[in-house]
């Protein structure tokens, strides 16, 4: 885009250059005109002769005149808020320069629902993200790359496995059992963002968003308030993420871009485990503390029939076996261009990211083709195509013993040898042998994804445009597992293989009419449209056990096989419209409405209606502020509207159902499956937003401030049924949840010197307060019911026994006896904190100097809790004997009267001191993370001139270089499960790695 704009004057001149004109004298003043992006004369623009002090400024009409300009000299044309241009001073034909606004400024085009809008005319809270500086972060999916970039959007990477699902929350969470993830729209296609994974990786899920190559993305818009999201009606309540992929430009010479990078990733730290002797000491201590006889303590001399003295115990390192220095590779090539009637973008990419945890990796090969063709002045057609193959070597990086990579490495006691007496590798403590796992792991998935959109635009009238589009999101998802008899999952069954193939198909047709008209100072835009969407999911699954030997891996060789089939689907029909009105660029008004009908709900409640209204006052445009030069922008915004949510519930959640499969004696059986609720309906979120935009010093300093209040009614929930009904729950609209928060963003141009040194800063911080306003009965979630949802507390609050202190006299943990009955029972569990931070945000600093560029991104959050479940297992006080590892942190246990510590004496699990659900393992998850540092150097033109005349940038990038946190685990963002209701529980999860990459980006 920029290149095109820069290129235009040159091209114009080149065309004219063919004509021979009389040479004009150099001492005649040189004159020209500078226009803004709309073609209006731009006053006050600085025009300088390059390499001299001579300069002038444009007049009211944008005209300038400068003396002493030699023919073909270079003029520097600069104006705050616009890109500085260098133009050859050619008198022939006269000089007209059109300036292009810089990013982040008022005239920036922002993609909104079913249209675009200039930033200055925005009413809604919409964050536009330029993905270019984070697109090389080695995390697989573009959403994971945005942490710290968007105010009010909290992004947590649950694990260090690239391409795994991340948690994205736009302005908090509105639902308990529905989905809280935002709606993703790629080039107008509503894409599936629910993982199709069916094999178990210990609660983890792959990210369908990782099927998109971040390099193909032109811009990302995050729609947050009702004004912006109501047009997405039933799916807008959790925010909308609009992704626009790259396209060519009309009349653009082919532009080839190549980006190659290589990198390495490594865990910044690993767990500190007790050595063999320390482990044995603690087990003995447990033995004595629980009235065991010292003569029969487990670790006594072998001659006495024991396992040997503690100091005789060996120590084995398994963590070093599973963790590695991972390799990262990325290759992207693209060509973009166009002629007067057509334009194209062709992109291809391949990335391979190894996880730091063997043998997991993530590979993506993709191909992108976007085409647009003008058939006439009035008709344009086009297509967007994304083809991706994502291949993953999967591994169980979460909970669970069989096949659990990290659990096997971390939770096996260090004193147990990986070998048995005969020197064979054996599993220990019910975990797989780490070496056998690494050598025999054979679990993989292949996702073939096509996301495409075909559109036709017809200009029916000069002001009326019709657009029809057909969108497809097709995903074939193949999974394969093979567990041979050396691994727990395959042992005893003679090997186990599974094969699953799923297809997800989403078809979308939308038709819109867009009308724009201007009468004097009144400008009106109208969009009306209609859409139909149909999604289906179909899966076949086969399993085989009993293989002849470990050389056979395909189910065809299995002696026992079984198979199953699943099908589900839903449809959505929609009507929508929006009217925007602009008076004199001072008063802005937006009214929108959407009606969505969904097959998921009972016939009486299939339709939901989602109106919104928004208004803005551009105070700066008023006469009384026009002379205030220091103030370049002042805008007040307000909006209110309704949005809905229907995601996360089953496609048939409203129906009373019986299912098959309750077989007996090999004969089919049926049983009640689900209680019906014909009144089930949309979850409805109302949101009020007020905003303030400020710009100072010609927008060198811009501020954006938003305050919002979201209130969700009819929240979808699997309401707990008393078990006496024979059901555990049924779908209902019984929850009310509120989110209120503040968002603040500050962008400054700290330095913009003529010498070429530029320094910009972007800072954002947001705070969200979540509260369950109405919930009839509390609901327990998460591993061992660590999370309780109950009225009056935030979603995802931790429900624990609060440990007050360890009695220095007895060494016993003292818990808060909430009901004062003298006993610690389940009734004494209480809410202690939640997964929500009090505030979070990011800080980006960018420096450029001549060919050098540097960017530093820091992300942070504060006040959230993390349950360090690894530590719960690792601090068993010796009671788990040789069934679990002991963490070094357990060595700080109380040993004798007078010891002051928070780790009680070693005396067993779940009796008192090591109570499951104790608050001792609930930790502060606040962090400051040096998320990304990148350094680049663009070769000078004098060098690249010989290399096809393009630009070549060399860069180096470091990710997660510093993590400041009090959390004692490896990564406060770790969650053992991808389930939204089980966030903040850290178990068996590899941390986000520290990585380094070097690369080169060439464009010509």
């Amino acid at each position, binding site marked *: 885009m920029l290149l095109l704009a820069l290129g235009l004057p040159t091209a114009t001149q080149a065309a004219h250059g063919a004509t021979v004109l009389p040479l004009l004298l150099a001492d005649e003043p040189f004159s020209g005109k500078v226009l803004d992006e709309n073609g209006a004369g731009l006053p006050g623009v600085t025009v300088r002769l390059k390499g001299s002090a001579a300069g002038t400024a444009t007049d009211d009409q944008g005209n300038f005149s400068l003396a002493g300009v030699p023919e073909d000299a270079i003029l520097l044309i600069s104006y705050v808020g616009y890109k500085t241009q260098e133009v050859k001073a050619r008198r022939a034909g006269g000089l007209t320069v059109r300036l292009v606004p810089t990013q982040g400024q008022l005239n920036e085009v922002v993609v909104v629902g079913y249209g675009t809008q200039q930033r200055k005319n925005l009413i809604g809270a919409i964050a536009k993200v330029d993905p270019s500086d984070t697109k090389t972060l080695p995390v697989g999916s573009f959403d994971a790359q945005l942490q710290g970039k968007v105010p009010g959007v909290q992004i947590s990477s649950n694990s260090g496995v690239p391409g795994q699902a991340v948690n994205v929350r736009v302005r908090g969470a509105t639902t308990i059992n529905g989905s809280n993830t935002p709606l993703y729209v790629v080039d107008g296609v509503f894409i599936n963002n629910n993982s199709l994974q069916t094999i178990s990786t210990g609660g983890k899920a792959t990210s369908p968003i990782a099927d998109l190559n971040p390099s193909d993305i032109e811009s990302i818009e995050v729609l947050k308030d009702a004004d912006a999201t109501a047009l997405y009606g039933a799916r807008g309540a959790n925010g909308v993420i609009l992704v626009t992929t790259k396209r060519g430009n009309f009349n653009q010479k082919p532009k080839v871009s190549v980006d190659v990078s290589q990198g390495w990733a490594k865990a910044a730290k690993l767990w500190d485990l007790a050595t063999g002797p320390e482990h044995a000491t603690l087990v003995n201590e447990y033995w004595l503390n629980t009235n065991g006889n010292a003569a029969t303590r487990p670790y006594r001399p072998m001659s006495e029939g024991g396992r040997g003295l503690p100091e005789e115990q060996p120590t084995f390192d398994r963590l070093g076996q599973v963790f590695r220095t991972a390799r990262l590779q990325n290759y992207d090539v693209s060509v973009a261009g166009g*002629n007067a009637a057509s334009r194209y973008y062709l992109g291809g990419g391949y990335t391979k990211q190894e996880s730091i945890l063997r043998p997991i990796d993530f590979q993506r090969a993709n191909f992108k083709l976007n085409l647009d063709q003008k*058939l*006439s*002045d009035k*008709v344009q057609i086009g297509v967007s195509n994304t083809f991706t193959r994502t291949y993953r070597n999967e591994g169980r990086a979460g909970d669970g013993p*069989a096949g659990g990579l990290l659990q096997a490495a971390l939770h096996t006691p260090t004193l147990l040898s990986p070998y048995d007496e005969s020197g064979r590798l054996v*599993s220990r403590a*019910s975990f*797989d042998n780490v070496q056998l796992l690494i050598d025999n792991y054979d679990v993989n998935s292949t996702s073939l994804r096509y996301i495409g959109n075909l559109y036709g635009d017809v200009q029916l*009238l000069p002001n009326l445009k019709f657009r029809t589009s057909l969108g497809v999101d097709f995903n074939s998802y193949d999974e394969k597992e093979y567990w041979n008899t050396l691994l*727990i999952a*395959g*042992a*005893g*069954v003679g090997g186990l293989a599974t094969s699953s193939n799923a297809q997800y198909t989403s078809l979308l047709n939308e038709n819109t009419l867009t009308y724009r008209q201007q009468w004097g100072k009144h400008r009106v835009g109208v969009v009306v449209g209609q859409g139909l969407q149909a999604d289906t999911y179909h899966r076949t699954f086969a399993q085989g056990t009993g293989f002849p030997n470990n050389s056979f891996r395909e189910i065809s060789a299995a002696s*026992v096989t079984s198979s199953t089939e*699943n*099908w*589900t*689907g*839903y*449809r959505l029909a929609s*009507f929508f419209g929006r009217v925007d009105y602009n008076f004199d660029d001072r008063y802005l008004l937006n009214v929108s409405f959407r009606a969505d009908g*969904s097959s998921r709900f009972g016939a009486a409640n299939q339709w939901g209606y989602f109106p919104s209204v928004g208004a803005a006052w551009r105070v700066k445009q008023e006469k009384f502020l026009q002379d205030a030069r220091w103030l370049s922008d002042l805008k007040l915004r307000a909006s209110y509207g309704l949005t809905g949510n229907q995601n996360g519930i089953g*496609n048939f959640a409203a129906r*009373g*159902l019986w*299912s*098959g499969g*309750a*077989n*007996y*004696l090999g004969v*089919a*059986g*049926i*049983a*009640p*499956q689900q209680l*019906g609720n014909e009144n089930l309906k949309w979850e409805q979120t109302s949101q009020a937003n007020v905003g303030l935009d400020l710009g100072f010093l010609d927008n060198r300093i811009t501020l954006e401030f938003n305050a919002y209040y979201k209130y969700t009614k009819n929240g979808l929930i699997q*309401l*707990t*049924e*008393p*078990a*006496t*009904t*024979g*059901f555990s729950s*049924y779908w209902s609209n019984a929850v009310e949840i509120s989110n209120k928060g503040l968002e603040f963003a500050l962008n400054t141009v700290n330095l913009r010197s003529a010498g070429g040194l530029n320094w910009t800063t972007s800072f954002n911080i947001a705070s969200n307060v979540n509260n369950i306003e109405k919930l009839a*009965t*509390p609901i*327990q979630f998460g591993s061992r*019911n660590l999370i309780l949802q109950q009225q009056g507390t935030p979603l995802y609050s931790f429900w624990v026994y609060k440990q007050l202190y360890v009695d220095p006299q007895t060494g016993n943990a003292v818990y808060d006896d909430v009901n004062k009955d003298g006993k610690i029972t*389940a009734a004494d569990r209480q809410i202690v904190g939640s997964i929500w931070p009090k505030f979070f945000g990011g800080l980006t600093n960018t420096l450029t100097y001549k060919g050098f560029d540097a960017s530093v991104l820091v992300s942070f959050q504060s006040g959230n809790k993390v349950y360090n479940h690894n530590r719960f297992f690792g601090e068993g006080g010796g009671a788990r004997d040789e*069934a679990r590892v002991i963490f070094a942190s357990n060595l700080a246990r109380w040993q004798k009267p007078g010891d002051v510590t928070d780790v009680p004496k070693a005396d067993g*699990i*779940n*009796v008192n001191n090591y109570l*499951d659900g104790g608050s001792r393992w609930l930790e502060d998850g606040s962090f400051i993370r040096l998320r990304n540092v990148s350094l680049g150097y663009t070769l000078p033109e004098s060098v690249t001139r010989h290399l096809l005349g393009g630009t070549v940038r060399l860069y180096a990038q470091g990710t997660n270089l510093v993590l400041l946190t009090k959390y004692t685990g490896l990564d406060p963002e770790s969650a053992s499960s991808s389930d939204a209701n089980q966030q903040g529980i850290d178990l068996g999860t590899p941390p986000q790695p520290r990585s380094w990459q070097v690369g080169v980006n060439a464009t010509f």
Partner: protein
Amino acid sequence: MSATTFRQRAAIRRQAAQLRPAVQLSVFSIAYLKSIAPFLGMALVLALGACSSYLDVQPRESIADNATIVDQQSSLTALNGVYSALGSSGYYGTSFQSIGYLGGGDIQWTGTQSQVQEFVSHNVRSDNSTVSTVWSSIYLTINRANHVLATVPTVTDPLLTSALRNQYLGEAYFIRGLAYFDLARTFGGVPLILQPTRTATDNQGIARASQADTYAQALRDLDAAEPLLPNPTTLGANDRYRATRKAAWALKARLHLYQGNWALAEDYATRVINDQANYQLVAPFNAWFANNARGTRESIFEIFYNGTTEVNGHRGNWQPTANGGTRQWAPNAGLVALLTAAPNNTPNGRSTLIANLGTTWYGNLYYRNPGSDPSYVLRLAEQYLIRAEARARQNKLADALADLNAVRTRAGLAASSATTQAAVLQAIEEERRLEFALEPHRWFDLARTGRATAVFADPLSSGAPLPAFRLLLPLPISQLQVDAALAQNTGY
């Protein structure tokens, strides 16, 4: 390049020419709009009208709940669903059984899931997940049985003969009776739910009946089942996997034993024991479970699993990792010592209930892989020991010893030397401990006799005996939270 451009341009011209009429129309804007307006309106109406059918997407894996039991076939499949619930992992599949043996003092906890440890140490808390699972699974079974009991009588289908109808109803009554018996002995009194749940508001807010009333309900169901159930002279191939009248007798014998109705317990046990055409104590001891045996002549009622579509996951908790399990629990050193030493270490005797890998001992009653081990609910040895106990209570010591010794003889053991009533009862208790070492009896036996307070210690107070309130387990706190009509057992 130029060739391409020319072709493209030519194509554009052609396409533009084709489109020209439409473009020209647009010039006459108002007229054009007027002309298309009715069509747009009609399209909208059509779209709205079509929407209701467009939005009707039917499930394919499930059926609507308003027409499920309509003929003989669906009556049978619904009944299969009741059996399936009875054998589910939360009930006789694993969890309920684990309550019966984990608390018996002979099983140790070797995994990490501390809810298991709570049974072993007799410190079960109301947030114990096994307790919650068992409560829910039993009521789920009851609801399925209630559906059969409420709907099958209304079905009109010539294929549903009265014999079949009676059989289906009898089986459902039997299973519901078993369910209430299990609830009563685990939790005491519970809400009595006798109608199926059809809407979200049914069957809740009902206070707990007394334990006596709950046992009475179990007995009422068995009384109802008894005449309806078939009583074949010779049991058919599947008759040990389904309830029969003989199974109802066997369960009644147990129920009466629990209630102290000694004569009735003796009477019903005798009916089963006397059916020697169908039931015998198979020998050697392990003949009723080893070598993939199932449906042996020892068996009165066992739950069937085929290992593929009906899987018994019980083995996973017992078997070591080398055999594909997690060995969450295992026989403790005391039990291992008892079973591996004389007199129990007879060939193919009770010592085969356990096995070892080196020094690691594990329970081996559930060993088939994939999990097709039966769940043993009622077998003949128990009937002998029920009768022995009932007779001993009635001071028929010689008869009692005869029954006890029948079981001992089959296990390869010498006759009991007990002589006094107390000694005979103690011998029976000890016999049950080993005969059912890995079956769900020991905890319930010690709880029903009250002996648990003498055998076990208070987990929270060193040196004190187990408090009597712990003979009943707590109701799940999660259920108390959702149903205000439920009250917790005292002590919890």
